[in-house]
């Protein structure tokens, strides 16, 4: 059975970028604690939230993602001292630009989740998935050519 078939009932596609030191570990803790969140959320591990290039987010939307979330260490707790501040600044800019271009603000999110916050990880993902579900499919930036090529 292929994934496309199950997509009939709307299943959003959510890409989560998690920093290796805090949020990825937070996601691990959510797993160890068996705190469920929708399978729509797929995690990409990055060393630090500042590694997330705004272009990755554009790419995700272009490829049909319905929501993108970036999770990093709490301000002041960054493993690399200041990476999350860069991420915060970059994403604030990017999100307001995306909003201006018609990608709803709610489709993008930055969250600080520490390695101890398994509960926060799962509630955040549940909330976010719910929001995206309500917003429906992202049609605005989806590039159909990309889809075609891949098929």
């Amino acid at each position, binding site marked *: *059975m292929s*994934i496309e078939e*199950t997509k009939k009932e709307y299943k959003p*596609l959510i*890409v989560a970028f998690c920093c*290796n030191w805090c949020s*990825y*570990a937070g*996601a*691990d803790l*959510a*797993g*160890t604690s*068996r*705190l*469920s*969140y929708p*399978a729509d959320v*797929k*995690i*990409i*591990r*990055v*060393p*630090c939230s*500042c*590694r*997330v*290039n*705004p*272009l*990755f987010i554009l*790419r*995700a939307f272009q*490829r*049909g*993602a319905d929501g993108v979330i970036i999770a990093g260490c709490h301000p*002041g*707790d960054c*493993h*690399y*001292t*200041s*990476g999350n501040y*860069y991420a915060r600044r*970059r994403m604030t800019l990017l999100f307001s630009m995306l909003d201006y271009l018609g990608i709803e603000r709610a489709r993008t999110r930055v969250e600080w989740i520490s390695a101890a916050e398994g509960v926060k990880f*799962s509630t955040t993902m549940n909330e976010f998935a719910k929001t995206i579900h309500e917003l429906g499919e992202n049609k605005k930036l989806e590039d159909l050519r990309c889809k075609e090529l*891949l098929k």
Partner: protein
Amino acid sequence: MSSLHKIGVFVCWCGSNIAATVDVAAVAEAMRAEPNVVYATDYQYMCSEGGQSRIREAIKEYGLTGVVICSCSPRMHEATFRKAAQSAGLNPYMVEIANIREHCSWIHKDRMDATAKAIVLARTALAKLNLNQPLTAGESNVVKRALVIGGGIAGIQSALDIAEAGYEVDIVEKTPTIGGRMAQLDKTFPTLDCAACILTPKMVDAAQNEKITLYTYSEMESVSGFVGNFTAKIRKKARHVNEDLCTGCGLCQEKCPSRKAKNEFNMGLNTRTAIYIPFAQAIPNVPVIDTEQCIHFKTGKCGLCQMNCSAKAIDFEQQDEIIERQYGAIVVATGFRPISLERFDEFGYSQNPDVVTSLEFERIMNAAGPTKGQLVRPSDGKHPHCIVFVQCVGSRDTSGCGKPYCSKICCMYTAKHAMLVREKYPDVEVHVFYIDVRTPGKNFDEFYRRAVEQYDVDYIKGMVGKVSSHGDKLQVQGSDLIADKQIIIDADMVVLAAAIEPDPEVRKIATMLTASIDTNNFLTEAHPKLRPVESPTAGVFLSGVCQGPKDIPETVAQASAAAAKVIGLLAKDKLKRNPCVAHSDEMLCNGCSACEKVCPYGAISYMDKEFRVPGPKRTEIRRIAVVNEAVCQGCGACTVTCPSGAMDLKGFSTKQIMAEVDAICR
């Protein structure tokens, strides 16, 4: 390039942890159909010896160039699988993990959903692996010598501990003697043992230890290099006294006719000669000439010290000397000073000599101080009958005049001063104005209560608003919040517990070391809880108040902790580096400096390089960024900021992450 890959996929059951919710066979089946995958299998426990040997055998049998393992979190077993791959001759960085346990089987209940997601995660790992490059962790040598900047109790303790482990240590101290602030103190809380009695033996130990070299009256000129390989330049300022010849007899000091300089050691409460030894137990016990005060340097005459020195140690011609040395690790122990009180006019510190800071009071109470330990007023030398102590002067102050933080030590030393006064002079009335009394620490609160209960010190919850001169008295106007009253006390002396701040020199030193510093000039630690004695800059360690306000026991503990970290570093012959570091494509780099500005480690520098170009010029010189791989920690901040796309991060390259995004959104 991806077509050259031969990839093996291993799906772990993790007993029933994964297999109960994910159809592992289906995952292996789906992956077998992916391009480049030549082998896919599932097994009960991939991390077990049986699982690992399967990986090793498959690598050999199918000539695998990369391995995807669908299992638990990479934070759990990435190292295990990398090692297994390496033992079969595969580069350990050609292993990717799809986390199908923590991020999939454990959180999803629906078997179909979980299996579908597991396949996506496996494909994502595969997409990344297709773009992986074999990486080799570089190595660098470690110079087995440590540098300690600052010769106070923190620096001395760090140096002694490092020397104890058998490594060479150099202490650089800017004043003419080691000892620092602790040498100025009278008694130490909460045990009241005398500071000199416990500090001077340590100073002597440091001087006599053959592994320790002291550079007093010296300053840091520059530091370059990286962990294990720092190069430091130390400016040894001219003392104008030959250290090797001087016997420390002190005759020069007796003969010196210039006696007007403020005595820094006594906080300016008395004067000293132009050629001087800061205090009797100074180490080294060699005087120094203050050229701004010395009559010989000002007029070319005098020279009495030279005439009287039987050791012929006085050398007016002596010049500054620059010493260049290699170090493996650097400890910063630059200490503190009390803040300037000129912005606190209400206490009349600058107008009235009987309003003193606690450090000045410390000198007054010290038997070796300007008053020989007699408690007298600096203005008229009379015995005071009433002393008012004011706490939190400039601490916890967000108005901009003081410091926003709590200086931590004031509550305890004020209790100590109050207690000592009452013990030696029971006739003296002692009042302490406090906002909060903060005494966390072993035997600290008991100590403070003793001041109140045993020594009758009058603690007033409130703050002083104004100190003014009335005849030979000081009128102290303050509030008593418990009584809801304003009170006026006619005091003979007022002692201000001034906030402490990092020595301003630390800014210069932090810049040299690219160690980060906070808004209050305290050095930042690598992690506030788990790495409190390391700076984010590898190879730089923090000791004492330069990191945050601390009392003596805490300073000593931190100094030893920093030393332990240094020893751990110096004990290694080679440093293995993280190969996942940034690197710049020199063909794309335009030398704009954007990456340098965001790098928290100062790992990026620039060089001019000659490139071949088409056309008649044939070559051109361009400025390009170069990453020092030993310093880079691999956060990737530079990769995003780079406008030309030249900067990339090995192991997490832009292409790899894009491929992951694509695989997820497929």
